[in-house]
């Protein structure tokens, strides 16, 4: 039973990560591979505040969100000026720097040894310690992130984001400030991702830098792409699927040493298969990596030049 609850909590954590990344990758069409870094900011801020200053849990949540937002602004404002691939490289650089800082600032972050003994959340005297309590907390935060994301994508701001994804030049020509919109959604995405870190740090009670590497970022991207870019339910489905899949492998009876490798092979194969046959993912509306023109072609182009109906 506890095992099942543990999986469900992990799924909630990845739902938060994939929903927040989907706002960026799926809706706005900008690929970031620094998502695990923001996840890490959330985890480390929560852990350090609780361990060093013994601040209350609710305050730690707020501080984690603000810290991730500030990092989002620091990274986003200069690097969102870059085009496509160059932006990806900039986020990659940030991801690497973040890992190095966490790994080498030994007296502050514990370096490779990590931070053990993170206190469990305490909300107005109520201690959250059992699996079921953690699951409720995770569901609440995942629900909050879903609610925020849903409001954003259904609002005129969501329309602006999707339009930026489809044709930046047109959006500029009708007078919209695209850099401001991109920076805004980048900060929002980073802040929401930090919530996953808050749960992770207080649930596992131990963190170290290896949980927040570029591999983790790529795993979150896989969830978004396989679940379906630009579809929030897709991110939920993708998170559940990709987190539960390796667990199911355990029941086949593979020895642990092989299971870990099989897991990596499976993810890789799945990603390749999806990219070839269903680039929009399970539920997605936006085929990632295809140019706007390609997708229009798929829509059935009735409006050829000079062919007026």
């Amino acid at each position, binding site marked *: 039973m506890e095992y099942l609850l543990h999986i469900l909590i992990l799924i909630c954590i990845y739902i938060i990560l994939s929903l927040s990344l989907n706002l960026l990758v799926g809706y706005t069409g900008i690929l970031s591979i620094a998502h695990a870094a923001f996840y890490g900011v959330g985890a480390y801020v929560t852990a350090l505040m609780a361990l060093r200053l013994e601040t209350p849990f609710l305050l730690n949540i707020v501080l984690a969100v603000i810290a991730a937002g500030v990092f989002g602004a620091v990274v986003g404002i200069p690097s969102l000026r870059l085009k496509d691939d160059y932006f990806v490289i900039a986020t990659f650089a940030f991801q690497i720097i973040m890992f190095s800082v966490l790994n080498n600032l030994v007296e502050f972050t514990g370096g490779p040894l990590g931070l053990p003994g993170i206190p469990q959340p305490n909300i107005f005297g109520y201690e959250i310690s059992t699996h079921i309590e953690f699951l409720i907390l995770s569901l609440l935060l995942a629900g909050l992130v879903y609610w925020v994301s849903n409001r954003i994508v259904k609002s005129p701001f969501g329309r602006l984001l*999707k339009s930026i994804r489809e044709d930046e030049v047109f959006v500029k020509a*009708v*007078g919209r400030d695209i850099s401001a919109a991109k920076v805004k959604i980048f900060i929002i995405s980073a802040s929401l991702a930090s919530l996953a870190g808050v749960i992770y740090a207080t649930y596992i009670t131990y963190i170290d830098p290896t949980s927040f590497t570029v591999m983790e970022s790529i795993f979150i991207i896989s969830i978004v792409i396989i679940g379906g870019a630009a579809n929030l339910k897709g991110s939920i489905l993708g998170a559940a699927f990709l987190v539960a899949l390796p667990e199911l492998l355990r029941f086949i009876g593979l020895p642990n040493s092989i299971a870990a490798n099989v897991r990596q092979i499976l993810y890789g194969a799945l990603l390749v298969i999806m990219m070839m046959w269903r680039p929009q993912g399970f539920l997605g509306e936006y085929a990632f990596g295809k140019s706007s023109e390609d997708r229009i072609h798929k829509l059935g182009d009735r409006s050829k030049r000079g062919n007026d109906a």
Partner: protein
Amino acid sequence: MLKVSNLNKNFNGVTALKEFSFEMKENEILGMIGPNGAGKTTFFNVLSGFIKPESDKLEFLGKDITNLSSHKIVSSGISRTFQDLRLIRQISVIDNVLLSFNHQTGENFYNILFKQKSWQETEELDKHKALKLLEYAGIKDKAFDLANDLSYGQQKLLSITCCLAADAKLLLLDEPIAGINPEMREKILRIISELPSKGKSAIIIEHDMDFIERICDRVIFMDMGEKISEGTSEEVRNDPKVIEAYLE
């Protein structure tokens, strides 16, 4: 209203604009003609802030707009269409118009989370305005179709409607009637010719001389990035320098 002085632009040594200057009054329709590669579209790109000029001055409504970014230029009142027809094709026709309205309360993060009622009300008002604009353009019945499902001519109409929605005082129309049927052409002609009565002006790049003659108060002929001739369409057509440029 618009004052362009000594505009220069080179692309790796190729002159696209050379000492290009002219002035424009309010409520004027100005035609811009010339052979391919004369620098007409480059001028639009510079004026709308998509590329930066080298040495020059652009003054619009008494303000210096030379080094403003494109969205600031649009909010000062200049909006453009593209020769290769740009729209957001995956969203509906009305969403394209709504996107073009600037200053939307529903784009503020705080409003999105906590004041949904308030932005939805203004969105309703905006929808009303958008439908009126689409009705004016004659594509109201297509409002909720995907923009991609419009015919080529209707898409051109929509792109002009978006300029109107962006509340431009000056519209830059890059080949508004190229490649469309005569019926659509009349519709677009009517919309452009009614611009001055709404307090708006336009600069039109077009190769169709008949269209230019019917609609423009004044014409500028460009070649090799330079202004060769300026005047009424008749004056320009009979200018020996223009004839020479075409014969070359």
